[in-house]
């Protein structure tokens, strides 16, 4: 068919037709096309990405080989998520990855950074491929961008959630460590309290102590607060409640180690510790407890 070429940018009808056919391709077909492209150029794109990660000086906690190995998994998972449109596998992978790299000291900004870098590397490669057809490029990006953003989101959120879970676990572990209930003699328990007591910890402490009294059939408990830096009215009340609850289980409580500051605070606040048995230090407290239990400690005769 003859054409009159007046405009170098004008196109033939055939070209117009084939272009409009492209316009009607559904997003899923475009997505498959783009996934195929990403798979085809996997090696080169992955290397490009690894190079940019090194350039950006992130993931410095990991060796080059490790970065490359993880990059491979991330890449494959990324493309798979794009292809299937489902994100559960990616979420599971993100959590698994986070569990592995968080102990290595990898930070949130690094993880978000590398996922965004991958998104950019892949997007650039799409720009390069479809640069001659702006309309098609737009449609490809319409398919790619929401999915890519969702992936970045999934990975980042997965990482942050894993960090939060680890922090909670560590806090719980610290709490457990700090409130041991120790049996030092038959029927005698010691509860050394160290650090800051918040209402939650105070409650946990009391529950642990009461259970300990029942399990060990304790008649005397020495609560040592030498390691408690400061005390306010709330904490003082918790202490009073702990003493009263212990008494209901038939145990006598001796509180030891009140620092001069805490002693002043308590008197100033006006908390009634009148009924509380207090002794200066832990040594004195244990000695008194032994007396209450009918023990007498005598040095062995030097023969």
């Amino acid at each position, binding site marked *: 068919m003859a054409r009159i070429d007046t405009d170098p940018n004008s196109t033939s009808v055939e070209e117009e037709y084939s272009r409009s056919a492209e316009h009607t391709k559904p997003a899923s077909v475009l997505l498959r096309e783009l996934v195929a492209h990403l798979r085809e150029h996997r090696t080169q794109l992955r290397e490009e990405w690894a190079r940019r990660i090194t350039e950006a000086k992130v993931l410095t906690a990991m060796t080059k080989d490790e970065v490359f190995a993880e990059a491979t998994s991330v890449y494959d998972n990324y493309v798979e998520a794009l292809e299937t449109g489902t994100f559960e596998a990616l979420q599971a992978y993100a959590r698994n990855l986070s569990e592995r790299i968080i102990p290595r000291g990898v930070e949130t900004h690094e993880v978000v950074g590398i996922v965004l870098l991958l998104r950019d590397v892949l997007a650039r490669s799409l720009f390069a491929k479809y640069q001659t057809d702006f309309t098609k490029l737009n449609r490809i990006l319409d398919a790619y961008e929401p999915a890519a953003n969702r992936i970045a989101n999934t990975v980042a959120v997965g990482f942050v959630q894993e960090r939060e879970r680890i922090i909670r676990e560590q806090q719980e572990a610290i709490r457990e460590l700090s409130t041991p209930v120790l049996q030092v003699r038959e029927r005698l328990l010691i509860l050394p309290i160290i650090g800051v007591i918040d209402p939650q910890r105070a409650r946990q402490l*009391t529950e642990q102590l009461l259970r300990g009294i029942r399990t060990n059939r304790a008649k005397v408990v020495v609560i040592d607060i030498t390691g408690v830096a400061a005390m306010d009215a709330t904490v003082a009340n918790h202490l009073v409640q702990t003493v009263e609850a212990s008494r209901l289980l038939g145990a006598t409580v001796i509180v030891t180690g009140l620092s001069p500051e805490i002693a002043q605070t308590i008197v100033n606040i006006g908390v009634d510790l009148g009924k509380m048995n207090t002794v200066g230090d832990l040594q004195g407290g244990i000695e008194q407890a032994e007396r209450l239990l009918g023990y007498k400690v005598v040095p062995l005769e030097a023969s």
Partner: protein
Amino acid sequence: MEVPILKQGDFLIATIQAALTDADLLHLRTALLQQVVRCRSRGVIVDVTSLDVMDSFASRTLREIAQMIHLRGAETVIVGIQPEVAFAMVQLGLKLEDVATALDLEEGLAHLKQKSEGPA
């Protein structure tokens, strides 16, 4: 619900087996006092191991039981308060002041024996 009261030598043991209504508690108070008089008991143990809740009425009635029995020259010990119950009680401010408490029946009896033996 009738609370069984058993005699063990000079002592009485009342074992509460389930939640008691206010009327049951008052009935227990009367029954214990009558038994203390009849048996000339020197001590009473009220075992609350099976109670998961202690409200202010129960707590007050137990104190009254102890006070009345004390007027008869006998000692009362409440035994078996569960850790969760103890915790809830102190939070509500139910202190059972002036009432002796012990971990369990064994401890309660030991306490009563010691008290009744008195200074030699």
